[in-house]
Structures are given as C-alpha cells and as structure tokens.
C-alpha cells in the first residue's frame, strides 16, 4: 500500500547557515526498518530538489528510531537573506511528512499506526 510518512512518523526541522536539518522519527520499532529502507538521502534530495541544491546527508540513529537529514543549499544562502516566507525552514519537516512510500501489504499489516484507522 502507498502511505504518506505523516501516518507512520513525526518530524521537526531547523536551520543553520544555508542548511535545513530534519529529524524523522518512527512512532514504533516495527516502522523503523521501513523508514531506513524507503527514506534514503537520494529520495529526500529528489523530494526537495525544487527548493534545495543539495547534497543531502542521512544519519541513522537506531537508539532513538530516528533518521537525521541535512539538506545543503536549502535557504538561498541563509535564513537572513532568504526571500521565502518560511525563511527558517521550519515547514520542511511537513514537506518531508508529505512524502509517499510504498509498503508491501504484508508488512503494512504489522505496522501499529496503520491498524488504528488513522
């Protein structure tokens, strides 16, 4: 099945210099390997290609079931010269949660957040 990340993960973004960083968190351990497999640095770079030059780095933290993405060239040079309404990249986490991924039905049946009718 195809699901938006917002159904299975939560996220917060911030900025430093010309980079946006996004923490993406699996709600539960069953979802964690799905995120690691599907939400790769390459995939995130494509997703943000409309607003960021890249490249994108991904850090994997299994101890807190999190992925950390750092997107270069994402703020038109930096927050204080960025013409966008969201000059600080605070909404970039929501942009990431909008991403759709495909999960085999069998695996989806084991993910708690997809059973709750959410």
């Amino acid at each position, binding site marked *: 099945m195809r699901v938006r990340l917002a159904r299975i993960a*939560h*996220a917060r973004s911030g900025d430093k*210099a*010309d980079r946006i*960083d996004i923490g993406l968190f699996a709600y539960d351990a069953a979802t964690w390997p799905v995120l690691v497999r599907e939400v790769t640095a390459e995939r995130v770079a494509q997703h943000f290609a409309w607003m960021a030059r890249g490249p994108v780095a991904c850090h994997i933290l299994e*101890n*807190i079931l999190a992925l950390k993405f750092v997107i270069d060239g994402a703020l038109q040079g930096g927050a*204080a010269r960025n*013409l966008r309404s969201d000059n600080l990249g605070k909404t970039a986490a929501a942009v990431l949660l909008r991403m759709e991924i495909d999960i085999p039905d069998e695996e989806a049946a084991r993910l708690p957040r997809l059973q709750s009718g959410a």
Partner: protein
Amino acid sequence: MRTVRIGAGLGFYGDSWLPVRAAIERGEVRYIGSDHLAELTLAILQKDRARDPVAGFTRDLVPMLTALWPLAEPRRVRFVLNAGGLNPLAARDALVTAFEARGWRPRIAVVTGDNLLERVDELRAAGVSLAHLDSGADIAAVRERLVFANAYLGARPIADALAAGADIVLTGRVADAALFLGPLVHEFGWAWDDWDRLAQGLTVGHLLECSGQGSGGNFGSAGDWATIPDLSHIGYPIAEVREDGVAVITKAPGTGGRVDFDTVRQQLLYEVHDPRRYLSPDVVLDMGSLRLTDLGADRVEVRGARGLPRPETLKVVAGYEDGWMGSTVVGFCWPDAWRKAEATAAMVRRALGEQSMAVDDFHVEYLGLDTFLGPHADRSRLEELNEVWLRVAIRTPDRRVADGLGRQFPWLALSGPPYMGGFHGITPASRLLGLWPALVPRQEVEREVRVSVTS
C-alpha cells in the same frame, strides 16, 4: 548521590518568561539557563547599538528579571543568560539601575571576550584566515560589510562566574547548551576532561535550550500535536541531573505540555547536523549510544552520552550586509483568483524592468496555495480557489528599489485585475544579511575572555 535541578528560561529573543515562574515556584530548580540569541539575533542587536552605544543587549532582560527575581531570590535560584548580546557590560548596567531602584542587590557577573569584530584584522595578521567554513572563501570579500563577528564561548567562564558567587551571569555569545553545562560543572566539580559527563551535561543543555520545544511545544506531527495538554500554560523543561551525569527531563507540576520519549527525542536532534560528532567548545558529543527511557508522568531518563575531546578551534559566526529585500502581499477573490494573482506578478515584474529597477531575485509565492509545500501541494482545485494571496519578494543591492516595490501595487486597484483586496500598505525595505561561519584557534579567543563580578 547528589542531584541538582536546572530549568529552561527563554528559547529566543521574544520568547515568553511567564512559564519560567512555575519552574521557580514549583519546580525546585537551583538554576535557570536562558537563551536569547539565535544565529541571527546579533544582527538585530547590532542595529540597536549603532543607534545607541549603551544598547546592543536583548531588551527582554530587564523586564524578565524584574518579574522573576522576587520569586528567585528567596529560593536562591541563580540565572545564566546570554542576554548580554553584543554589549554585556551595558546589560549589567541597565539591570543594576533597574534593580537598585527597587532596592535589590544581587551579585552579577559578566562574561566578555566573544566579540571579535574589532579583532578581525589582528587575527588575520596573526595568520587566522577566518575563511568561510563551508566554501573556503576569503573573508576579505565581505570584510568591509561585516556587522558582527562573535566566537561561541564554552561553559568554563560561566562555571567560573558561579564559583565567584554570582547570582546572575550575563554573557554574550556562548554555545547555547553551555548556559546549562556551566552550572552543572560548577555544582558537581566535573573535570574539564571528563568527556562522558561533559557530554551528558551538553545533552541536558541541548534539550533545555529551546524552552517549550523540549516539553511538547512545536511537536512536529500530524494529529498528535493536538493531544498535547494545555499548551497555553506549558511548563518549560527542567532537568534533574545526578552527580554522575544521568539526568531526568521533566517539568513543573501542574503545567501543560508533555515530556515523553517522542517530545524529547524530537528536541534531541533539533539543529544537530552530525549526531555522532556534535561539536561544542567543551566536548564533542556522540549521540549514537544515548538511551532515552520514558519513565511516565512527564519524566524521561537520559543516559549513555559519549564524549570525545573538545576541538582545538572555536566556531565564529559573522554577519555581513548582503543587500535589501522588498516584499508586498495582496489578495485576490474568486473567480480566477490564482490566474489574477499570476497575471499581477507578471505585471509587477514588467513594471520593475521598464523603470530600470534592477533586482537580483524576483520571488513569487501564492499564500494559501503552495508556499510551504511547493510541488507537493494539492493543486487540484486551482481554477476554483476561493481566494489566494500573492506575495512578491525581491532581493536587490539598492535600498531604493526595495522600498519602491510596494509602489507598483496600489494603482492596480483601479487599473489591474478585479476583486483585489487586503493590501495593507507598503512595507519598507529590510536589510538582508549573509552569514559567515569560520573557525578560530581557541587560545586566540580565550586569552581575551574576562569574567567580572560586581556585588
């Protein structure tokens, strides 16, 4: 084993100090660490100081401490604040004046030495290139346009100030988490090469430095944000830290917000660009071995931080003038709302060209449609939108051009596309700044760091 409780103050210049009252009155804290300086705040303070030599600190300092000191003093709660900004000595003088008028005489310490703007040439002559940390570019390119340049100091001068008996420590630029690490080192006497404990203290500081973001505020999620209790009366996070560094993140009883595994781990990674090598002036933190344990009842235990030796360099962030922004917003009603907004943007762009108003960038947004989500927005009802708002923003080296953008709009009310509303006047140009991150050998900065205490 001894423990100490330390609470979060502000998370930025403009944040609310009302939640800090609960931490002092009911949270049993001994210290409040308060972060007033985002990466760009020094640019705002520089403008203040240019107008007035005794300005340049964050103006929330005096009203905040005037409100909180009467609660803090009888409980012996001490404050560490980077509200000194570009002018910590003037911040102290303003605070002393306000306090003396009320008969209050706390011992105040001031940390200076972070401000490198007047030392840029001296440092370069001494062989410190201050080259751009990412691009490697020579700082000569922006030397004449620099408006601030500050090194991030660490926790040591803060711990020294507390050891000298300060009730209130005022600093300029320090690493945000140092506002919390300093009191912990002072309390427990941790050695400056006890890397794992310093790493625990840094983690605590990082979890507290953004006020409500560490206790359920701005919880980035679909749906779940609405389940966080009583954000109106959020309790900023409090850390209960043991002598061995193990800590519990919590908040004052009877406050809103939430401290659980989800809210804490979201803050843990916030603005961390390499979780296995999170650099600070005092220690390099590896988060890969951290364990967060949800104890229930708004308590999360933090342990397992691994520390690596501190870097030999300190980070400097400088800001330089980088042109001007003009921006204007105007709304359009159905029918054809989006088409009219698009046509108007094209007319404005043409008008700038015909008047030889040169711009480096011409940025168009349709507020309410796709400003944040871009191509990931749902545009299926584009032709039938109820309304949409056009925002045009330009970047230009010429202030007059930025100021002139707004004047391209009023005449459209009678001579442009129909059903335009909500033009709220012409916004003056705003100054744009480029950021210049660089490194400096720590001894070049540290030999100028001073802690002065008044009683």
